[in-house]
């Protein structure tokens, strides 16, 4: 029996997550992932107007905001059988693309970088050498000795103030940090640049979506931002897009390559076995054929065989989750009877359920999408992947890892960001030709069922709705972090993050930095993964009579 290490709270994520690992001989031997909060949004939805669902479910997450609203309106559109006009599809794609750009940038620099970058070490760097290094690896528009000197001075003033704020008490000086001081200073400077940039990147959402977080321009049938389809608004969007994409190409990707070159051993740590992608970003109403990021499933890392996805094969298991016993069920039949109890890794230990595809635990997210696209021969993704592994001098199989997951996130940001330009052009062409249609009228049926599948920054997202008497009878969603961070299922198969942690080297059990690296590489989003119902008040909401 090895030592148990508990990390609670896992910080630099969304939501409340507890990770426990058992360490033996300096390596992780076993791992448990536990969601620590329960909110109840699915039961809250029962009996409400299906059109309202998007606003409730969007509040599942304010980080990957928008994605649930999109999945929800798609599910309702399927249930009421309405096809949206091309302009609405393009605007939704643009908002979705902007979400990828924003989410991945923030994840790399603000939620993940401090696992690889020692901020304190940056104080010892020589600014002139940092400038030379930065010139060598990146095409950042800011740089030079004076710039790095001023950043270092700013950090020094901050440290000298004695108020270290968010940088207090971390794992600084840990032996697993490998970057030279100069690279740490470069990364620290870009951390600050990215903080500023993300505020502008998020403005893309406000242009066609009113605000960020929690956009407010989607409706079942289309979008409402018809008055924003003007040359100045489109130019504003394009300007923000261009500024972001330049940063992605000139700073984010070069930083990723620079940092990764010091951590190549992480190409053999943190891998999983099966991968699932719903795909997204449709070029027409024909799905899945027209999706820019393709749909598919990969079992046992076999990229030569990318299987089709059938949503009927999805089930959720609750045997190790704080719910009453029941057999694994498809979301349409999903039932959730919470039973809060003790934390017991041999029994129940999480509020998250355990989703399975054909009974298998699957990783979802950037790596799954990139692997499916690569396996299917997607030209842009294939080129990006091949160039990257060549530059890093690693085999393609090194992608099945924490390093691969982090690299895939950057690569798809490039690809999706580039595709956005085409959607803007298409939108402009339509408007030029007099097509300003953004909405298709529809009628609420007495009954209906539908689902909406998305692939969002964190992975495969599905919403399922059943309508009866024009109200929501049942609403279930299975989200990326439930797939990635869920517990074991009734067959004892581990969830992806539990699987990925096995074998991770631990230099200092008091400071399990290496565990954070793999957990953060999944970009956990836990509030969204726990959203289920309460048994003791299992009553249906009474609609307000106006």
């Amino acid at each position, binding site marked *: 029996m090895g030592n148990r290490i508990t990390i*609670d*709270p*896992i*910080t630099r*994520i*969304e*939501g*409340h997550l507890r990770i426990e690992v058992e360490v033996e001989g300096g390596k992780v031997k076993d791992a448990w992932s536990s969601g*620590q*909060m*329960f*909110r*109840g*949004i699915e*039961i*809250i939805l029962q009996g*409400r*107007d299906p059109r309202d669902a998007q606003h*409730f479910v969007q509040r*599942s997450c*304010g*980080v990957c*905001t928008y994605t649930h609203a999109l999945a929800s309106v798609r599910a309702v559109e399927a249930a009421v059988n309405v096809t949206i006009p091309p302009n609405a599809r393009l605007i939704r794609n643009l908002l979705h693309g902007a979400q990828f750009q924003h989410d991945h940038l*923030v994840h790399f620099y603000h939620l993940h970088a*401090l696992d690889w970058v020692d901020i304190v070490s940056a104080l010892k760097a020589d600014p002139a050498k940092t400038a030379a290094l930065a010139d060598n690896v990146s095409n950042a528009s800011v740089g030079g000795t004076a710039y790095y000197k001023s950043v270092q001075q*700013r950090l020094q003033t*901050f440290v000298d103030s004695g108020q270290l*704020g*968010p*940088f*207090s*008490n*971390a*794992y600084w000086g840990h032996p697993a940090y490998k970057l030279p001081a100069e690279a740490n200073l470069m990364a620290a400077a870009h951390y600050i640049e990215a903080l500023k940039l*993300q*505020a502008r990147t998020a*403005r893309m959402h*406000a*242009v066609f*979506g*009113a605000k*960020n*977080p*929690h956009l*407010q*321009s989607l*409706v079942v*049938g289309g979008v409402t*931002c*018809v*008055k*924003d389809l003007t040359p100045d608004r489109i130019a*504003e969007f394009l300007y923000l897009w261009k500024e972001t994409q330049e940063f992605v190409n000139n700073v984010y990707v070069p930083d990723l390559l620079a940092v990764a070159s010091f951590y190549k051993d992480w190409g053999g740590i943190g891998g999983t076995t099966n991968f699932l992608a719903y795909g997204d970003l449709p070029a027409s109403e024909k799905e899945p054929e027209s999706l820019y990021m393709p749909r598919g499933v990969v079992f046992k890392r076999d990229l030569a065989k990318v299987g089709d996805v059938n949503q009927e094969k999805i089930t959720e298991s609750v045997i190790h989750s704080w719910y009453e016993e029941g057999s694994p069920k498809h979301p349409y039949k999903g039932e959730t009877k919470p039973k809060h109890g003790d934390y017991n890794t041999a029994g129940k230990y999480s509020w998250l359920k355990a989703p399975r595809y054909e009974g298998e635990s699957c990783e979802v997210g950037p790596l799954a999408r990139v692997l499916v696209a690569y396996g299917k021969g997607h030209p842009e993704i294939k080129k990006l992947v091949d160039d990257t592994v060549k530059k890093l001098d690693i085999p393609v199989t090194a992608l099945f890892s924490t390093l691969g997951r982090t690299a895939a996130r950057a690569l798809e940001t490039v690809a999706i960001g580039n595709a956005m330009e085409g959607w803007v052009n298409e939108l402009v062409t339509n408007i030029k030709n007099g097509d300003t249609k953004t909405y298709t*009228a529809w009628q609420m049926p007495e009954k209906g069922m539908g689902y909406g599948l998305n692939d969002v920054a964190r992975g495969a997202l599905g919403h399922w709705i059943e309508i009866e008497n024009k109200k929501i009878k049942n609403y279930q969603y299975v989200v990326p972090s439930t797939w990635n961070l869920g517990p074991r299922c009734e067959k004892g198969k581990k969830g992806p993050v539990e699987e990925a942690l096995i074998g991770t080297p631990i230099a200092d059990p008091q400071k*399990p930095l290496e565990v*954070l690296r793999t957990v953060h590489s999944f970009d956990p989003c836990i*509030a969204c993964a726990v959203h289920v119902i309460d048994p003791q008040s299992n009553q249906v*909401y009474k*609609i*307000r009579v106006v």
Partner: protein
Amino acid sequence: MEKEKEFYDRLEQRGVSRRDFMKYCTFLTATMGLSSSFVPKVAEVFAAPKQRPPVVWLHFGECTGCSEALLRTRYPYIDDLVLEVLSIEYHETIMAAAGHQAEEQLHSAIKKYEGKFICVVEGAVATKFDGAYGKIGGKTFLQIAKDVCPKAAAVIAIGTCASYGGVQAASPNPGGYKGVGEAIGIKTLNIPGCPPNPVNFVGTVVNYLLLGKLPDLDNLGRPMFAYGQTIHDQCPRRSHFENNEFVLEFGSKEAQMGYCLYKMGCRGPETYNNCPLVKFNDGTSWPVEAGHPCLGCSEPNFWDKMSPFYQEM
């Protein structure tokens, strides 16, 4: 003087012109309802306070949208706010420490700054089964709130969840979620909104740093400067309302002409907030401008009171 010059040099280096910065200070001063003579003093607050006021930011039942909203603030950009204006002692979304080191950081900050720190709460508190539905480090949200909030100089509830319970408190409220003030029986300054405009948070903090006190509040604990008037009273589409010019279907000619959204379910007349004036994301837009009715997201219990959202009030 020297300090001021240094400050403007620093700003310019970060791509913010002095002119833009003063424009923002004027805007913020006006938003806060102060006379223009306060503009230079507001600018001073951002320049360089000697001891940055410590902030402990707690996350309970929420989606992190309020933190995200604050990350989109401009002048000060969030890096200035974090590195130069405030001292964020604990904030789970951005802090480097994790696990027991994070917990230590929370406890040492509370001890060191007892009675002096600003406690910002994001998210609602689960109360059913003694708070069993939400835990951090094995302690319930309820225990943590009871332990930390009374030791603060002031408790700011950011967002509708911390203020009034928010989405998880919507009927039938499965987890027994409540706003933090109600859950532990204290008075909080509330900055509701889903999410709130970061300008309203920054305005509140600047007010505190500038005048040494919190701004005037209405009977729901909201700063009057931000929540003193209804959306409807400030709405640029108001003349269409007066002229009986309404949108009756999305995508219609009337929608293209920017008519009033009242009949599509707009809750502007019942909602107190400064959205039409301040707008979101550096003044880019707000829901009515994007053609979507207001949901009333800064009002207590709006998820039940204002829904179904697409039905005329």
